[in-house]
């Protein structure tokens, strides 16, 4: 089956909108993706026909929503190739999933003098929760270096994994550099020293097939909104043995088995980590987004997006004064760049006027930008619905904008 771009674009209503009377060219997909009609339909259909709180009512609607939520969990499990649906915890997103692990893991496994390892290319979401845990328990946060081209320094990585290290956390794909880290090998190295690993999959699941069992990841997290699902829903995958071991996080309804004022016993997985009413309709819509992705095929999407990235990379290199930030051999999804003597902010504002949405700034990876010694970059990031024509338009407008600014 071939990739039918016209058909894909048709599925996303927002792509046919205009901004400033110009056709929208949406190239900020690493921040969030647009939603296909099928996902939007699920949201309105459930609010119109089925809405009812899950896991509590015996009535028709409640059982319907409960079942649909658990079906969605199953879809996520199969999508990530996880062993069990109970290893899938619904969260608000990547950020909440990382906080959940950082806080519960550190409670029993982090003490004074221990170390936590992350990398220089992490999103603030995969820095700050660990920093907070380290501060609380007197542990140290260690940062693995990268090479100038944006690939991880694997020697620095191995050296960082000393006896004191209790957990390692890193991105599968960098949201700023696009670097695809050699996750499987990195996990193997960590496991050879009995160190568990959390993988931040916020920029990977939408671009590349992920098999958490093959990777042997202990924790793998992502956000629904970056894979064509609504905002407010995300996923924590955790190996059953780990999720059993970790203490519960937030307390509330759903996560309990029995409550007395003296003692509460906790529910089994996955509910132990889902206190309160979850965004169940968001979860059901996430299931619809995964259906959408799988119908097209994540391999197809992946090779189409790789083609776009290569095309954009080759084209932008012909523009004078452009420096691409992030030139690793294996890249996915994003093209970040700076222009000699021109502030990224100016480029972003002027491109906006032409209907092009790109991101400018530090993309929540401030330490990485500091290391490169740049205030920010312009980032074009791609999704399955972008086209070569859009890239041509970007390049044309970029040259025009640069001629105004230089």
């Amino acid at each position, binding site marked *: 089956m071939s990739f039918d771009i016209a058909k894909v674009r048709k599925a996303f209503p927002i792509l046919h909108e205009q901004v400033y009377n110009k056709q929208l060219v949406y190239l900020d997909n690493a921040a969030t993706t647009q939603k296909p009609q099928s996902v939007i339909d699920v949201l309105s259909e459930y609010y119109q026909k089925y809405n009812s709180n899950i896991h509590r009512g015996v009535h028709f609607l409640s059982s319907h929503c409960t079942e649909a939520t658990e079906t969605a969990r199953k879809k996520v499990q199969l999508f990530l190739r996880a062993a069990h649906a109970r290893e899938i915890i619904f969260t608000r997103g990547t950020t909440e999933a990382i906080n959940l692990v950082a806080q519960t893991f550190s409670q029993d496994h982090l003490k004074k003098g221990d170390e936590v390892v992350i990398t220089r290319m992490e999103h603030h979401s995969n820095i700050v929760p660990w920093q907070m845990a380290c501060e609380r328990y007197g542990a140290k946060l260690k940062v693995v270096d990268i090479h100038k081209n944006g690939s991880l320094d694997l020697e620095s990585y191995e050296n960082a994994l000393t006896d004191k290290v209790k957990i390692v956390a890193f991105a599968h794909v960098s949201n700023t550099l696009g670097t695809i880290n050699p996750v499987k090998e990195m996990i193997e190295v960590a496991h050879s020293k009995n160190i568990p690993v959390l993988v931040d999959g916020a920029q990977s699941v939408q671009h590349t097939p992920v098999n958490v069992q093959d990777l042997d990841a202990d924790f793998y997290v992502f956000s629904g909104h970056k894979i064509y699902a609504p905002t407010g829903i995300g996923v924590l995958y955790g190996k059953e043995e780990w999720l059993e071991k970790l203490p519960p996080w937030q307390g509330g309804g759903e996560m309990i088995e029995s409550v007395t004022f003296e003692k509460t016993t906790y529910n089994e997985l996955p509910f132990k980590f889902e206190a309160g009413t979850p965004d169940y309709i968001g979860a059901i819509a996430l299931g619809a987004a995964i259906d959408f992705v799988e119908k097209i095929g994540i391999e197809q999407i992946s090779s189409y997006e790789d083609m776009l990235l290569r095309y954009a990379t080759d084209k932008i290199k012909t523009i004078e004064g452009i420096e691409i930030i992030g030139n690793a051999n294996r890249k996915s999804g994003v093209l970040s760049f700076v222009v000699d003597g021109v502030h990224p902010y100016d480029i972003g504002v*002027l491109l906006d006027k032409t209907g092009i949405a790109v991101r400018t700034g530090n993309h929540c990876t401030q330490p990485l930008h500091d290391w490169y010694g740049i205030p920010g970059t312009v980032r074009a990031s791609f999704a399955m619905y972008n086209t070569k024509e859009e890239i041509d338009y970007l390049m044309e407008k970029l040259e025009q904008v640069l001629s105004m600014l230089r």
Partner: protein
Amino acid sequence: MSIETKQQEIVEEYSVFDDWMDKYAYLIEQGKELSGLDEANRTENNIINGCQSKVWLHADYKDGKIYFTADSDAILTKGLVAMVIRVYSNETPDDIINAEPWFIKEIGLEENLSPTRSNGLTSMLKQIKFYALAFKAKYGNA
């Protein structure tokens, strides 16, 4: 020239542009023409952080009037800064405190005032009023 007249003047200058490119080209030109700050005043203290672009603002007080100099690392912000300085500089603290920068909306650049815009302009306008209040407190209104 009063703050009011200066604002009217800017609005007139912009009234000839009907296309965004010309308008922004003029904004850029104004940015390029702003001589910026003496190195001595380009200090951490004078930075107004706008998250994406930085603004430096320095104020001097002489014979009852305030003189602003400013700069930015982004040229569009610098263009806006140049206009704001032109409007508010060389005025008394009271006049500065009482004048609203209505010209920004009038020339169709009000999106730059949105607090989410993160270019430092809103903070700069606050800082200008703050300087005026501080000088007024210190020297009274001449």
